[in-house]
């Protein structure tokens, strides 16, 4: 690990004063410490933000608010989450391991880096890690990589399960910087890799994620996260689906569908949702809608199976909800 200066911030303003290019904020550390050991991330300064008052899970007319420093396990078990938004609780509980969920913060989860083996290996090129050095995954080992939103520069899959569920629920993140506070839809927060895969999100240097807000959605009580992976536990998704269903008399009144394990960012599927609205909640309707999910898919040499897997994942997630 490269040397760095360590400070523990006692307040948000103190953290912001120490933030900027070359500085990393440290919360749970499950991404940062790992990548610092690999020398993939080499901050000159690390600001420990764990003492900041960015905690709490609450609900009001605007929806559900989660402090950015809440830990994954605490949010997964919170009654407001398990009761009102099962898709969130399930996405959290199917992530990582219990120890990692006890450590990792909600803000950190949303900012976690990709699991691409080339990104994590400093002896290889990687446009995300070293812009212009090439993407060995395009013609290399790419079984776990994305089929949606890829570019010639980067095909890495966005790893967060929570982000998929939050994008399905139209969540916003609050970003605080020295220049002020802004709220950004999580779906807009994440950037496509394009020619600049090193830019993963709309977080400016020195800004902090302080909280996540999920707009109130009464019918999110009928929601779920289905995650398909090589192992049954403690593994990243090959394909996943976050779905919520407003079902009246066997008809889909409204629906949310977002998918993970397949996109370079959490992937909302408005065309699939549109194909379901107003239709009978029947297998052939689900199958026809799910087919739209992969219309723009660009499979690589080793991940062609994901197009079929993704369609089936969406269909099964919806079918389970009709129950």
């Amino acid at each position: 690990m490269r040397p760095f200066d360590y400070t523990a911030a006692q307040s948000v303003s103190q953290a912001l004063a120490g933030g900027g290019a070359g500085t990393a904020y440290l919360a749970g550390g499950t991404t940062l410490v790992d990548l610092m050991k690999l020398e993939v991330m080499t901050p000159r300064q690390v600001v420990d933000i764990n003492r900041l008052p960015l905690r709490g899970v609450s609900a009001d007319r605007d929806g559900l608010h989660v402090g950015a420093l809440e830990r994954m396990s605490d949010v997964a078990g919170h009654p407001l989450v398990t009761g009102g938004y099962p898709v969130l609780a399930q996405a959290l509980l199917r992530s990582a391991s219990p120890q990692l969920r006890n450590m990792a913060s909600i803000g950190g989860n949303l900012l976690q880096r990709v699991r691409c083996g080339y990104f994590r290996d400093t002896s290889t090129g990687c446009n995300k890690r070293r812009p212009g050095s090439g993407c060995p995954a395009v013609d290399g080992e790419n079984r776990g990589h994305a089929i949606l939103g890829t570019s010639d520069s980067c095909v890495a899959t966005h790893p967060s399960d929570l982000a998929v569920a939050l994008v399905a629920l139209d969540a916003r993140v609050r970003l605080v910087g020295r220049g002020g506070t802004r709220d950004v839809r999580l779906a807009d927060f994440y950037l496509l890799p394009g020619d600049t895969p090193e830019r993963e999100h709309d977080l400016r240097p020195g800004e902090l994620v302080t909280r996540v807000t999920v707009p109130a959605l009464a019918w999110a009580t009928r929601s779920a996260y289905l995650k398909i992976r090589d192992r049954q536990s403690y593994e990243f998704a090959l394909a996943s689906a976050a779905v919520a269903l407003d079902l009246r008399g066997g008809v889909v009144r409204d629906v949310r569908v977002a998918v993970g394990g397949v996109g370079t960012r959490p992937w909302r599927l408005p065309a699939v949702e549109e194909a379901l609205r107003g239709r009978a909640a029947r297998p052939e309707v689900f199958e026809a809608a799910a087919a739209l999910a992969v219309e723009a898919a660009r499979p690589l040499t080793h991940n062609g199976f994901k197009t079929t897997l993704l369609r089936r994942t969406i269909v099964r997630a919806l079918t389970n909800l009709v129950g």
Partner: protein
Amino acid sequence: MNPSENADDSRPGVSRRSVLGGGAAVAVAVPLLVTGAGAEAAPVAEVASADLVPIKVEVNGKPVSVRVDPRTTLLDTLREELELTGTKKGCDRGQCGACTVHVDGRRVLSCLTLAATVDEREVTTIEGLARGDRLHPMQQAFIERDGLQCGFCTPGQIMSAVGMVHEGHANSDDEIRERMSGNICRCSCYPFIVDAIRDAQKVMR
């Protein structure tokens, strides 16, 4: 070989240790960056400029004050500085669970925890579970159910299992398997580990 590993090997009475000592030494043969040693060991010139961070931690009920290189993990501090070598270094990347300890009562991975961040917190390691000569029910159950072979993952398994029972999620074999998935056993002793946890959680209730 690290001196503290040698000292550990010489402890009498535990036959597995002589086998295990070799494995543990290999595991710690990667460059270690601990207080004091960090300056010589690290390849980068400006290492000396990194300020040491003073921390006060309660480890297994005893207050401890140490100064740590900011890069030092809690795992390395426990093993190299405080000579608590019960906590094992497996992957050192947060993937195997061998380094599991409790911080403020929660099970966490000490290999991904920077020691500087546990200032004023309480740490419990496998050495802190027993009450004198009386083993913790989870330790006793692992012995009775033979929930180990080589034993390298066992401290992490036991710390994780105790944490899980306290979390209230050890109510069925399926739940135990799911909630213990962060602890890998290379000897694949999983069925006996589940048996041990099922026994122990009844006693712990």
